[in-house]
């Protein structure tokens, strides 16, 4: 796939995906007759990350932090505004549409809501065949059947599933169908956007284990996007914490837990409930004041300074911190060392009122005027 001319950077063999200064800005449009761009929602605003082959990169953050947009922009499902995405030596952002489509075989996606991500009018066989046909894998019908049967076994679905439709399955099984659809193409990278958050607790563990198993058996590389830090930490080798469109900290999974450096990571960590009364009673909570600021109008300087209990009068409000390496972690905080050493103490933060952003993460979509049935 990767010909010599397409290699842009010196490819380090172990890095599968190299994202550089990726930005995705959605225009906010107003106006009755003519759309006027009145601003931009900076969903992703300058993210650098590398995903090592065969490992899992976990992206965690709260709603509106841009983690899903980042995942989609990485796969070129949402066109990035600027920046580079290098997949195994191939620059995706400038790739011609036809070549990009061929590349898609190597990078697949798993979605949050297994119901809405499956075409309700396709049965499982047709769902699984579609990708094979698109990429001309497997030649004839029998060969395809064989691939599909193997994939079903891998994700733990019975054969009788083939003739059935998505609505006839339980949530967990639907998610397995979604995984099978991604897997059937034999991808190298799988971007999983909240793969378990729509599922019941007991089913979540099944899917998490399945993802683990598949990685062990097939050597897959994952980018797992989730809001649940416990889940992300459980399956990831490296965890990146996002806040308002940018990475604030990136560290190996265990290190992130033992030595969180960024104040936001600490707050997030202390907010995740642990099913253990002893831990719950002992732990110190860092309660953040207020809500996430609007990504259309992010705070100046460090984006977290409006809610940060460690915010300092200098630098925080006017200088945007870059990711710096501190002992195996990368952290975007001016005062990380001082906070870690205990030199700086947390203080109380007054709440700023935050207006909810009009709609989800993609305001561009909102302008679709007609709803079905509204005419009748």
């Amino acid at each position, binding site marked *: 796939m990767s010909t010599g001319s397409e290699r842009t950077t010196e490819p380090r063999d172990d890095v599968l995906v190299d994202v550089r200064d990726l930005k995705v800005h959605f225009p906010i449009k107003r106006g009755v007759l003519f759309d006027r761009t009145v601003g931009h929602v900076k969903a992703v605003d300058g993210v650098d990350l590398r995903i090592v082959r065969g490992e899992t990169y976990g992206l965690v953050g709260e709603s509106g932090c841009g983690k899903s947009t980042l995942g*989609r922009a990485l*796969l070129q*499902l949402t066109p990035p505004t600027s920046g580079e995405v290098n997949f195994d030596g191939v620059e995706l952002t400038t790739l011609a549409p036809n070549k990009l*489509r*061929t*590349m*898609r*075989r190597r*990078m*697949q*996606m798993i*979605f*949050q*809501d297994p119901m*809405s*991500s*499956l*075409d*309700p*009018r*396709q*049965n*499982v066989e047709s769902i699984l065949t*579609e*990708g094979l046909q*698109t*990429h001309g894998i497997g030649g004839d019908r029998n060969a395809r059947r064989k691939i599909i049967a193997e994939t079903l076994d891998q994700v733990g679905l019975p054969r*009788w599933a083939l*003739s*059935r*439709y998505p*609505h*006839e399955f*339980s949530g967990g099984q639907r998610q397995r169908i*979604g995984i099978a*659809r991604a897997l059937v*193409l034999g991808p190298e990278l799988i971007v999983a956007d909240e793969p378990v958050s729509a599922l019941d607790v007991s089913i979540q563990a099944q899917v998490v284990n399945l993802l683990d198993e598949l990685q062990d058996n097939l050597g897959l590389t994952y980018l797992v996007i989730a809001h649940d830090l416990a889940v992300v930490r459980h399956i990831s080798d490296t965890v990146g914490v996002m806040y308002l469109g940018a990475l604030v900290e990136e560290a190996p999974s265990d290190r992130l837990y033992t030595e969180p450096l960024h104040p936001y990571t600490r707050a997030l960590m202390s907010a995740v409930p642990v099913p253990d009364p002893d831990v719950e009673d002992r732990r110190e909570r860092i309660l953040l004041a207020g809500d996430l600021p609007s990504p259309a109008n992010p705070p100046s300087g460090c984006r977290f300074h409006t809610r940060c209990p460690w915010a300092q009068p200098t630098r925080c409000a006017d200088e945007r911190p870059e990711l710096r390496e501190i002992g195996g972690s990368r952290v975007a905080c001016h005062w990380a060392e001082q906070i870690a050493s205990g030199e700086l103490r947390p203080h109380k933060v007054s709440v700023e009122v935050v207006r909810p952003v009009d709609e989800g993460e993609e305001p561009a*979509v909102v302008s*679709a*005027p*007609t*709803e*079905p*049935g*509204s*005419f*009748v």
Partner: protein
Amino acid sequence: MTIISGKKREKIDRLAELAARDEERGVSLWQDAFRRLRRNPAAVVGAVILTVFLLVAIVGPFFVPYGPTDTMGIREGVVKVGQGLIPGHSAEHWLGYDHQGRDVFSRMIVGARQTLLVGVVATMIGLAIGALIGGVAGAAAGLGGRWGRWVDATLMRFIDMLLAMPSLLLAVSIAALLGPSLITVMIAVGMVSVPVFARLLRGSMIAQSNSDYVLAATSLGVRKSKIALAHVLPNSLAPVIVQATLTLATAIIEAAALSYLGLGNPDSATPEWGVMLADAQPWLGIRPALAIYPAVAIIITALGFTLLGEAMREALDPKLRK
């Protein structure tokens, strides 16, 4: 360590599986909708009405007792319009004569076919043109990027123009342009329903284009044109099909209205319910039944289509499933 007998384990597993699946083959959404349709009494009533109507329209004309254009009443001197004499029902003529001495029952039966033809053809015209415009606009807006939005905007402005005109005025102008005939009525009625279908399909397709399974297909590498045809379009059709059924009802009524206004077939030799209604107008004082027969027939047929359409809307609504 647990101990469990094979038989018992089987029983547990079977019980557990019972909840998960009740039959062997998968049930598609269409099959499922049809099943729920059958359980809906309104749908059954609508279907019965329409079946009768269809039967009458298709085979009825072969069994009518008299020719629909045979002016036997005048020939036999029974009907004397000048003296206000139009006999009503009798053993030979179940619904009596009309003002030209023709057998009303025969005309009603033969008229059913014409009426059905007008309704179906008019709806087909509307559906075909509307779905084409709406489908192209919807696919372009949902998947096409900047060019797509331009195509969509252009098509929709045209539809807005159609929509801005009062429907009857639009129909009258078309009829005036083409001259009065049955074809004119069909085209006019069809054109009126074009914006309805176009907007409905476009809106539905745009909504579907934003769904996750379209994103999933894109990430599989499926071509946009195929996504539009294989995923977006089939999932957007349900409201359009419902609308088509409902439009059949209004088309019959509108066609009757146009015929009543004299824009229909000027040669009343081939009977059509709307034309019959129009023809009955001068004789309302003498024999109102002449207007009531076709009017009631139109109402019942329209009701049948409406009942079925509403039931289909319910059956196809994904929110009402389960």
